[in-house]
């Protein structure tokens, strides 16, 4: 057993730390929010040049062949800097699904431009009732000549507005097994309507409507009768990744709060001179450390676990534990900042909103707690 980061992982951490320190601050964040995609293209190109966009992809498709540990290192720093670049949607969801489900030709054609930073992707999966589990898919894929026709509606698509192509899940006709298949849909497909909006805390989010969108036969990723397993795996891994991002968000909120309570004076002494405040800060610190430990654990185990139940237990467990810690750290950070904490002047509010998004994304803490209970019961037959 050795939990030290390798030299390469440490180098990655240093370079991402340095990049985030140099390129993200309040002023640039506010500028980026004015850009159409809600982020700076120059950053994205820099990510590509630094090799970060290819991190989780295999070397034979032009990637770096890294794993969830490397992804977690990136995501934690993205969280600290409140980065809004669409790494999650493009690389970790759509990219991962292409890598998993696509034919070698599709992988070569679609992933190379992603890794080089030339194209952006989104994963369009959730439908109107996003609270439900992953299998609530009513978007239909029907045979149309030699190709396909898609009909339906997707919601909460991360950074869908900036995507050059969308990976879309749709249900196959009963005649073909009725499972879920994945399709690659270009942004200019006829019959595709996209409406997007700013996302809480940064980035953007879109609704996609498919009205008789016709796709060629090679738009379907692979030919598996049901891609639900792949989707579940990609989302489990994405949960581990946003857990690391949340740990970074929490850390920044905590540090700002610690600093503030040392400086802010009331009744002639710093706030932090009060034992009740000090203890609350300690609890926030403990929860930051716990979130980070759980995120590291998830990153290590989510790749190692090839048994689906175990992998999902790791993901849901991380979502619950980190979610609980996040809620407390975020709320206490606002509370200890007093009235300043609820103003738009500080970045604190953005961190708070990002953590709300973390809690809700891919299912709430309660949803994952129930999932954890069910999976645990299944994994421990009596």
């Amino acid at each position: 057993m050795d939990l030290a980061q390798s030299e390469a992982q440490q180098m990655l951490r240093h370079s991402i730390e340095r990049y985030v320190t140099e390129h993200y601050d309040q002023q640039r964040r506010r500028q980026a929010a004015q850009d159409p995609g809600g982020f700076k293209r120059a950053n994205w190109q820099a990510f590509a040049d630094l090799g970060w966009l290819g991190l989780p992809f295999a070397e034979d498709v032009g990637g770096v062949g890294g794993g969830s540990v490397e992804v977690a290192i990136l995501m934690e720093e993205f969280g600290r800097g409140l980065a809004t670049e669409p790494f999650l949607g493009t690389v970790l969801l759509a990219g991962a699904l292409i890598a998993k489900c696509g034919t070698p030709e599709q992988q070569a054609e679609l992933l190379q431009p992603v890794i080089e930073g030339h194209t952006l992707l989104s994963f369009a999966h959730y439908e109107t009732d996003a609270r439900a589990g992953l299998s609530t898919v009513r978007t239909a894929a029907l045979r149309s000549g030699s190709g396909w026709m898609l009909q339906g509606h997707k919601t909460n698509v991360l950074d869908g507005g900036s995507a050059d192509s969308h990976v879309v899940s749709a249900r196959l006709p009963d005649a073909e097994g009725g499972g879920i298949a994945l399709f690659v849909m270009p942004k200019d497909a006829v019959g595709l309507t996209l409406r997007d909006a700013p996302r809480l805390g940064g980035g953007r989010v879109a609704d996609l409507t498919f009205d008789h969108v016709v796709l060629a036969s090679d738009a379907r990723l692979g030919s598996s009768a049901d891609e639900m397993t792949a989707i579940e795996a990609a989302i489990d891994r994405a949960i581990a990744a946003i857990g690391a991002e949340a740990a970074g968000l929490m850390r920044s909120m905590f540090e700002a709060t610690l600093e503030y309570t040392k400086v802010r004076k009331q009744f002639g002494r710093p706030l932090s001179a009060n034992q009740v405040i000090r203890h609350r800060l300690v609890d926030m610190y403990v929860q930051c450390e716990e979130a980070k430990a759980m995120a590291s654990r998830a990153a290590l185990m989510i790749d190692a676990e090839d048994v689906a139940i175990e992998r999902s237990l790791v993901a849901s467990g991380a979502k619950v534990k980190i979610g609980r810690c996040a809620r407390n750290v975020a709320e206490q950070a606002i509370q200890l900042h007093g009235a300043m904490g609820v103003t738009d002047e500080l970045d604190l509010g953005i961190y708070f909103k990002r953590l709300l998004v973390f809690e809700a994304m891919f299912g709430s803490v309660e949803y994952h707690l129930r999932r954890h209970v069910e999976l645990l019961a299944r994994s421990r037959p009596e």
Partner: protein
Amino acid sequence: MSLSFTPDELRFRDEVREFIAARLSPEMRRATSLSVSFFSDPDLVAPWQAALNERGWVAPGWPAEHGGPGWTATQRWIFESECSRAGAPQLSPMGIKMVGPVLIRFGTPAQKNFYLPRILSGEDRWCQGYSEPGSGSDLASLKTRAVRDGDHYVVSGTKIWTTHAHFANRMFALVRTSDEPRQQDGISFLLIDMDSPGITIRPILMISGDHDVNQVFFDDVRVPVGNLVGEQGRGWTYGKYLLEFERGGGVNSPKLRAALEKVRNLAGSDLSHRAIAYPEIAMRLSEIELDLQTLEFAELQVLSALQRGENPGPVSSLLKLRASEIHQAISRVGVDVVGQNLMVEERRRPLAALNEELLVSPEVLSVVPRHLNGRANTIFGGSSEIQRDIIAKQVLGL
């Protein structure tokens, strides 16, 4: 980075498992499983310690030259895990994990030669004389006096919360040898024979009815000067060293894992009418499982750092804080699992010895006293409030 064990570590694990299978009897397991105090009954521990001592496995943290096995941090974790998993009794930490490391670090050759082998064999049973009435968390204010008189110190005063003083033949104590402006500077670390004239032990019963702790009175007790550890007036330093060992030197998650498994098994059994079928119980168990996984991983990170020869930093207070809270959460959910059956109060001990037909099973009976005794977890060894003060000061710079 890797969470998996190397082939050597796996071989070691198998070796430990074989040993346990050969030497831990079903009776010992059952008695351990039904024991409700923090420290196992010395009569239960003795044969297990003897078996471990034959193998040289009593003190995993000691250097080999003093009778330790010379294990890596990972091996120690594996050993702890396997013992907890199998339901082996916990050896008393007071000799092995507390006074032993202090003697190894600060003791004279004569003290080491005399005491260390007796700790390993279990011939000596130690208790800790730190707290006093009025000097609990504010230990520096302690008042028990040791006045030099020729070749002896004359000790007078009282110690309280002394776990297993009624079983111990020796005590390591912090005593006041002078009045310095800084209270800490007048404290010395003294080894006291419990059969010395002038010592009286008063039992203090826990709310469960268990007799674990005592108040000890010293009435002009004569202690040879040779029983002073290190220098006179430096006891505070040695005591702090010991506390850090107590908090950070050990690993807690294997024990907690075993405790959680026990509750989960009870919840899944007919003894609790399958309490696990209730979502609120199952969800609570999952949340505790996740808290425990987090602690476990944090402990493994510390082990991994130690194994690389790094200093893990002042993380021991964080681990103590969370371990004690998780311990209480486990015993608390146990109470929820037994539900209305908690109403039967059984004060006879040991529970494993109760042979007649009982209103509820010994497994169910053990739950409440374990919960009651467990409330002490966030109080002893430095209360949670003290741990938070330490973290605030040492980690957050407040």
